[in-house]
């Protein structure tokens, strides 16, 4: 075994050909199996996992075919064709078996939900990515920031509601009231988390500048502290806004029944559409800041070569403080905006930390570009939601399979380099 690996390693040419061969082989086999599976009805094959693996290989191969700077495009073209054929077949079978109406309903609903989730993930992960890119710090406290943002947003919401409800003009209009309070909640969470971020960075993380391993441990310490403090303050309960129209306070402006009906069975929750738009606006804003302003350029440059940026006379420590605070603030914002969907509770911290890991790696961790994080968020969000809907129970496995598939073929992720 090892001698085989060795021989492959030593012979570059042979290795390349072997990988090419493997790629084509995997694409071929997985394609055939998937087509068989679709034709033979989904329940036939023994193991669900097996099916998922096949599906994921195909997704991975599809993703490979998007950015193609390399010379050997054969497997990529191959897999692209295969994807198209398989998707057509899948569509056909789905539509045949369930009818156009239901298929459209399910498909479009999942798409919107998936996109909303993606935007949420993007909001949260953008800060994680910047912190990681600039200083190599894997911020274990990021999920905790996200969670804390949820609680803060919720608290600020209730607080501002209790103030504003006395104003007759607002008190009579619950929808407007809750909308304004929600916005206040978002702003509040962003500011509070930003301040916490600055505090953490200035008092501790800055002191271990350029010792990423020790800094990671600091963030673990803060993860514990935030988690436990949250539990002490709010208890283990799950918090979310009220949707019952009878209750007086904490009513959310977009209850689950607030639905946008486009006809043809396509009905979407307005909150999700709001989430998509909100996420897009923030994303575009961040892109503009990163590519147009001086500070944005410095951050972009800092991700590529922090030392050289320092040697150009820029105080990278200060820039990093800013980025860390912004990252925490963005996580807080994401947490606050997510409360109607994911609730404010303690489990959120761990789960979303892992999402952040996955997205950053798929998007390109080392020397990755910001766009990579955006696309990775969309991939993760969509595949998670689709899987949840069509193959419930496998949604968490699929993310890791996607990660494996992408990293096998592009070790640096979508945009990064493998160090």
């Amino acid at each position: 075994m090892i001698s085989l690996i060795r021989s492959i390693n030593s012979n570059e040419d042979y290795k390349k050909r072997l990988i090419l061969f493997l790629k084509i082989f995997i694409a071929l086999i997985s394609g055939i199996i998937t087509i068989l599976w679709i034709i033979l009805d989904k329940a036939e094959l023994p193991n669900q996992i097996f099916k998922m693996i096949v599906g994921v290989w195909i997704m991975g191969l599809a993703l490979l075919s998007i950015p193609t700077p390399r010379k050997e495009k054969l497997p990529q073209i191959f897999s692209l064709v295969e994807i198209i054929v398989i998707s057509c077949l899948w569509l056909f079978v789905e539509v045949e078996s369930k009818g156009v109406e239901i298929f459209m309903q399910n498909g479009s609903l999942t798409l919107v939900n998936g996109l909303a989730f993606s935007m949420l993930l993007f909001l949260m992960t953008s800060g994680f990515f910047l912190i990681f890119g600039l200083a190599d710090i894997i911020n274990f406290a990021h999920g905790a920031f996200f969670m804390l943002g949820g609680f803060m947003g919720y608290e600020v919401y209730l607080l501002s509601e209790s103030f504003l409800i006395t104003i007759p003009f607002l008190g009579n209009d619950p929808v407007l009231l809750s909308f304004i309070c929600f916005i206040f909640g978002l702003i509040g969470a962003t500011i509070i988390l930003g301040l916490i971020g600055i505090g953490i960075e200035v008092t501790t993380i800055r002191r271990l500048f350029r010792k990423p391993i020790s800094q990671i441990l600091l963030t673990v310490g803060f993860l514990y502290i935030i988690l436990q403090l949250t539990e002490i303050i709010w208890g283990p309960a799950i918090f979310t806004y009220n949707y019952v129209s009878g209750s007086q306070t904490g009513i959310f402006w977009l209850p689950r029944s607030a639905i946008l009906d486009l006809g043809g069975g396509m009905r979407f929750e307005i909150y999700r559409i709001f989430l998509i738009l909100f996420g897009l606006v923030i994303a575009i804003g961040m892109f503009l800041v990163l590519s147009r302003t001086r500070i944005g350029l410095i951050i972009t440059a800092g991700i590529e070569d922090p030392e050289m940026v320092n040697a150009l006379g820029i105080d990278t420590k200060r820039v990093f403080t800013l980025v860390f605070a912004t990252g925490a603030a963005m996580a807080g914002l994401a947490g606050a905006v997510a409360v109607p969907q994911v609730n404010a509770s303690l489990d959120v911290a761990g789960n979303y930390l892992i999402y952040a890991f996955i997205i950053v790696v798929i998007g390109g961790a080392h020397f990755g570009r910001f766009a990579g994080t955006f696309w990775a968020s969309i991939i993760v969000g969509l595949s998670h939601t689709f899987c949840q809907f069509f193959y419930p129970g496998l949604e968490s496995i699929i993310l890791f399979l996607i990660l494996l598939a992408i990293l096998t073929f592009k070790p640096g992720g979508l945009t990064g380099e493998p160090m």
Partner: protein
Amino acid sequence: MVTHTNSNKNKQKQSIITKISDLISANQVSISVITVLYLLPLLTNSELSPLRGFINLLSGFMIAGIFALSFDLQLGRTGLLNFGQAAFFGIGAYVTVWCLDPILPSPLGDILNLIPFPLTLVAAIFAGMVVGIVMGATTNRMKGTAFAFIALAIAMLVLEFMELKENLAISGGESGLSVTRPFLLTNWIVYMLMVLFVIFILSLFVILVVKDTRERFAFLFLNFRPRRSAFSYSEKERISSTRVTTSWIIGVAVFILLLILVVPNILDMYLFATDIWFKIPILYWLILTSVLAVYIFVKRLTISPFGRVLSAIAQNEDRVKALGYNTFYYKILSVTISGGIGALAGSLYTVNNINVSTPETFGIGQAINAMLYTILGGLGTLLGPFVGAVLIEFSEWRMVRFLWTFSIDGQWWLVFLGIIYIFIILFFPYGIVGSLQLRSRSLKTRIREGWFNIRETDYWWLTLISLVLILALMLDLENIMKRIVEIFEQIFSLFP
């Protein structure tokens, strides 16, 4: 320099006994510590006592230590940050469960059930190494953090797989699986064999006492000898010192004293203990022996040419490649070995804990733990991960009660732990052992040369004393704290 060549010349003439005694005197500190650790269970009998509870606790700590060491072998030695360490731990734990109980479906389950108990550890190690090969194979293309994440992905994949509804039977779900305890662990014959082994270790210790009595007295009465460096006295002088009859007498006296202390307990165990009473001491010895084996193995590994290449890779992989080494081969081996050790930790955990569940063994919490132990203790210091593991586990265990003595609600324990971690890493950026080593180097030389005329070989005394002190502290910490608080309260009550 001179003595070095001398000893080279004498090498052929040395008998086995002198070789052994040389080996012993070269490792005085470790042998003292090992002896104390091995002796602990013999100080308990078939009654419940705090020491017994403490021994049980120590077993848990040492398992954490093994796990930390497996992590350090990658991060500290090879520079591979591995977030998927929990996969090794989990696979080790579960393979042990599958071996000990008929859980798995027919073909594989039957084979695993054939493996008798101590060999299950080997099976677990083997399984861990297989996972290690898979993870290590990715190091060909993944470097730095990318490797950390892909390892995490592999680990999470295994976790998610175990948590699937279809696999509930083999994973035990949320509540986990419970193992039947192996027969060997609750058996007085094994206990007696272990006792013999402990007495053997004890006699090694006594030889050590005899050998260096003269030097030690010199230490006790401070500055009796004229100042001289560690290597200046000749071979002849050393041998003559072992002939001093008084030191033989003292040695035998120590031996008999310890036996007198211990034998009643052994007899008591033999006469009155039921099977279950043997579990804690036997398991403790098993774990302690594994710790030693792993420690020595890793230590030998790191000073071997292989280990040097690993450290070289950690520092600058490209250079090592340029020197013509196939770094991939070294990295994959490093991950594989580490996987085996991690699985051993998991396996011992199963035997020790009886109950195993997926989130506890495969979860990301385990991976974070491994990282905490290693970084807090000191990367790449071998001893550091152990110190970190014991410290963290200990403070986790004590924190709630510790807070109670200051009438703080127990809920705050994790907050305080977090604060402690942050403080430790702020003041010891290279971990406790790592930073202390850096700082104490100057102190050490000062002590050795100027202050008390203590030589390197005399450190084991200090070690022994401080170890005993720490043990005492650990056993009665909260009472001591309570006393201190009481004293303070009394003092404050004087000022109305």
